[in-house]
């Protein structure tokens, strides 16, 4: 091979790998991302039951009910709409009534939400940004100014 051909091969191989990466990314963005909705957005946008999504809002005071064994039920609201959530497992440490929460799972046909993951930030004052935003949109933001954020190295919204 001449030098030129070698270079062409190298550039060709690089482009092929790059194209592969871009293709994979586009393909994955198509169906592996999860959208976030507040309770009122669910009806507005007509989210189908069975679609994987994140639900965010405030836990309604006095709504936590412990069912059989490890099942837990609570309501999530943005004050415009409220959705009952069922979850099996251990709630995160900072899960509290009246506090912001993000639940991941899917809508069930009866209009409830069955969560397999419940996220609350590892900071008592934290309000997930999406929740703060949803509350602002529905006109129920209680805080002054912007949502507080913490200095936990951002060790994000883990359950």
């Amino acid at each position, binding site marked *: *091979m001449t*030098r030129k051909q*070698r270079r062409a*091969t*190298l550039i060709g*191989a*690089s482009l092929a*790998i*790059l194209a*592969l*990466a*871009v293709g*994979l*990314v586009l*393909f*994955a*963005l198509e169906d*592996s*991302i*999860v*959208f*976030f909705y507040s309770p009122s957005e669910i009806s507005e946008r007509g989210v189908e039951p069975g679609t994987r999504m*994140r639900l965010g809002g405030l836990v309604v005071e006095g709504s936590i009910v*412990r069912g059989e*064994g*490890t099942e837990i039920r609570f309501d999530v609201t943005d004050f415009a709409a409220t959705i009952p959530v069922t979850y*099996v*497992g*251990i*709630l995160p*440490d*900072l899960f509290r009534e009246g506090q912001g929460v993000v639940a991941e799972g899917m809508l069930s046909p009866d209009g409830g939400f069955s969560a397999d993951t419940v996220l609350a*930030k*590892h*900071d*008592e004052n934290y309000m*997930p*940004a*999406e929740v*703060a*935003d949803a509350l602002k949109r529905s006109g129920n933001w209680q805080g002054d100014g*912007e*949502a*507080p*954020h*913490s*200095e*936990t*190295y*951002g*060790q*994000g*919204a*883990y*359950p």
Partner: protein
Amino acid sequence: MIAELGHFALVLALVVALIQAGAPLVGGLFNPSLMRLAVPAARLQLGLLSLSFLALTYAFAVSDFSLSLVVANSHSAKPLLYKITGAWGNHEGSMLLWTLILAFFGGAVAFFGQNLPDSLRARVLGVQGLIGVSFILFLLLTSNPFLRLDPAPFDGNGLNPILQDPALAFHPPFLYGGYVGFSIAFSFAVAALLEGKVDAAWARWVRPWTLAAWCSLTLGIAMGSWWAYYELGWGGWWFWDPVENASLMPWLLGTALLHSAIVVEKRGALKRWTLLLSIFTFGLSLIGTFLVRSGVLTSVHAFAVDPERGIAILGILTFFVAGALLLYALRAPNLKVEGIFAPVSRETALIVNNLLLTAATVTVFVGTLYPLALDALNGAKISVGAPFYNLTFVPIIVPLLLLVPLGPLLGWKRADALGASQRLFAAGLAALIVGTSVAVWRAGGPWGAPLGIALGVWLLVGGFADMAYRIRLFRGASLMEALRKAHFLPRSIWGMTIAHAGIGIMVIGIVGISSWRVERIEAIGPGDVLQIEDYTLTFLNVGSYNGPNFTAERGEVRVEKNGREIGIMRPEKRFYKVSSMPTTEAAIYTTGIEDIYIVLGDATGTGTWTFRAYVNPFAPWIWIGAVIMVAGGIVSLSDRRYRVGAPVRAKAVEETAEGIGA
């Protein structure tokens, strides 16, 4: 008084950094003797920033509540260790640490870089000084840690309890050691562009610094992941959280840089690419700092809370990356191209390594920043998690791992692919046997798991194929002779072999926990039994006790395997009074092969408690593998070629080692 001293030292450091940057980069144009100022300036810079950081640490250690930073992040009831580590458990302090480590690397070049050409060393220190100027200015203008509070309150607000943990306390220094350590590669790249010369000697100087930074970053990421595993209470070890990705991106590109610098050193090829990698690796470190420090990640709107901080770091990032790229565009075409090689050669193997690592970095980059971009564009909120990365990152990284054992067996310039593959026969056979056995043993598991374990074995055994060949093991040489040869192999060969084997161990750990984890959640009362795999967990009771700054509920669980008692595990729930925050302390029992992981949940009100138990097969291997990788890096660093301060003496030895050395 001590705090004022620290503040004053910080301001002085700014002045010294200005001299360190100005004298070699600007002054040198008019009067070359000014360039000599860079070395003493870098040493003084290190001294002043150490003083400043010590002053802040002292303020935290003695709980000086007249400093508003101490009030916001400390409390007198905290254990001393966490008072001290609290100094960097907040934005201002951690940025001061960042700047200190920057000065530390600059100081290291000033102290140990006697073997560098004077002008190169001065320019490297100049660029390092320029980065220092920007970050000290950032500290003084937007995040001054030494601001006073008057009147001083009696006590502080405390440190977030989940940060009060030994692994997390030392996670930031190691992480920053990596982030900031890549600044040296960046400074070397910019200095080389200014000098207009990149040669084997340049690569030989850059490699140990990059390797040291890489080791530190690897350890930092591993510590963070280990912390997440035991502290967050749900037994996961990597969440593809944007903050984790922020540290993974420079790691991936830094790994590529380590490998491409070898080609520059040995063959003089890939010069421009290596310069670009140096620039982008540090760029990604700055992006990581920006993402974590500005708050755009946890919340797009927190950006508005600290607009000046986020924008300042973004400005610094743009200045350095854009400036370096401009310089690259102007100067790189003049670099002499050398090193012709055939399509099958070690050079090509390392290029493929670089391409795949870069592609992997791109997928992580897109996954991390796409949600931000989408939110900015149309306000849609999405999250990108494990499914995305399983579809993008994994298919790119698996071929790379498959090629890892092959690369070192290929010769420079032109290689015999068939011969190299034959030497991997043993590794292939081992992978096949183990893979098949696993497929039979865990017949019900995911289909990918046996393949993943086989990949791990391939890496582990294949890593040693190169070494076995070099020492002529099983090829006529007696065992004693082979061992003697092994003893005289360059340390860099040992380092590479160990690091590559470490990846194999880590892969087995990752595949094990991802494929075969068993989870059980049940509400049980005292005396009840939870059966998970071969383990019988008997819940004995729940008691309470008082820690230094928390109260805790502690469960006792007896663990039996096949009827034989192996221990008592004590999962806890703690409540930190000062910050009124509960935390979960999981109990972990490890056999070395698998972990039993128990979390105590809430009382259900009917005399039972919720328990969550996991069996995590091979989980400890993830961090064992990471530590082995770091060990490999350290062994490689101790190679006499890189030994700091002994370059001349080693020269003669080096020439002879060259024949075998990689």
